[in-house]
């Protein structure tokens, strides 16, 4: 009998698969039997991710999600290549620390576009007729910053909270179409993106950040397992919610 956590027979698109959480998620999903479509902007890095996966069961699909107007068409053409999708993990995103005084309209818009608008467009794309398989599951990578705040994270928090808010309505709207929608809210995870952020902090500030994580800083795998669960038959009764994977960060 197939394990409820198995992703055998499922084709899943992972955005932001060039690095960090996206890359690790692609690897884990494949380990659980999924056919994985890895997407990102950088073809070389996507190829690196694909190398870590059994190469016959992965498709490399470079795409710049900033072209939000083209995402729906892209999903349609992707499905023509690989068949209906059983899920999508929207892990692509950008982060910037900017205090309000330095926050331009343009910075705010840029953050919202990649982190939020692209997620909505992906949902719209996968919802198209013939594009989703039964038991389809959409997973948005939100963040604890979508639940709690921190100075300098106005735009980032807004974009991540937007996913959480949208996810509820999306879940209700798409339930009759057998599509589930959920968010994952990780705290600080060891990735390239967080390394860039860390580079902006002093040692003291970094110490403070570490102290706020009772179980330490997370690994991309910790988040990947959460995505795997939400994409699996085991989560068939889970929709419209946010799975917090944060080492205890928000418990404080």
């Amino acid at each position: 009998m197939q394990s409820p956590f198995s992703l055998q027979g499922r084709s899943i698109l992972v955005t932001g698969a060039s690095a960090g959480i996206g890359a690790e998620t692609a690897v884990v999903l494949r380990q659980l039997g999924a056919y994985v479509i890895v997407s990102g902007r950088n073809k070389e890095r996507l190829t690196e991710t694909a190398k870590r996966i059994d190469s016959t069961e992965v498709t490399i699909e470079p795409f710049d999600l900033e072209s939000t107007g083209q995402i729906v068409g892209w999903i349609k053409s992707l499905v023509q290549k690989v068949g209906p999708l059983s899920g999508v993990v929207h892990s692509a995103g950008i982060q910037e620390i900017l205090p309000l005084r330095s926050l331009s309209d343009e910075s705010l818009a840029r953050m919202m576009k990649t982190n939020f608008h692209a997620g909505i467009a992906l949902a719209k794309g996968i919802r198209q007729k013939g594009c989703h398989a039964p038991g389809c599951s959409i997973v948005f990578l939100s963040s604890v910053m979508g639940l709690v705040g921190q100075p300098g994270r106005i735009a980032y928090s807004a974009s991540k909270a937007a996913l959480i808010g949208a996810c509820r309505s999306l879940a209700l709207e798409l339930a009759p179409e057998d599509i589930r929608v959920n968010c994952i809210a990780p705290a600080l995870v060891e990735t390239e993106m967080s390394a860039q952020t860390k580079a902006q902090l002093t040692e003291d500030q970094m110490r403070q950040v570490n102290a706020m994580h009772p179980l330490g800083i997370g690994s991309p795998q910790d988040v990947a397992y959460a995505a795997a669960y939400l994409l699996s038959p085991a989560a068939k009764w889970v929709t419209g919610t946010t799975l917090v994977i944060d080492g205890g960060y928000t418990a404080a």
Partner: protein
Amino acid sequence: MDKKQFYEAFADIVEADPASISGSKNLKEVEGWDSLAAVGFLAMADKEFQTRVDPSKLQKCNTVDDLAALFGDKISD
């Protein structure tokens, strides 16, 4: 950018009157120079000078001119 423009950009970040900012001014005496201003400064460095400034170098700066020195000859006198 020249030094005068740099002082103005700095004054903007710390929300101070540009007239009150001189090169020799000690950062500790600049009211708006806090950790958030420092973040804004790092963002400006990236945007205006395409330079990633190491936060620890930032901590070692005592005066406004020390900050300017982080950008070497990208700031003309």
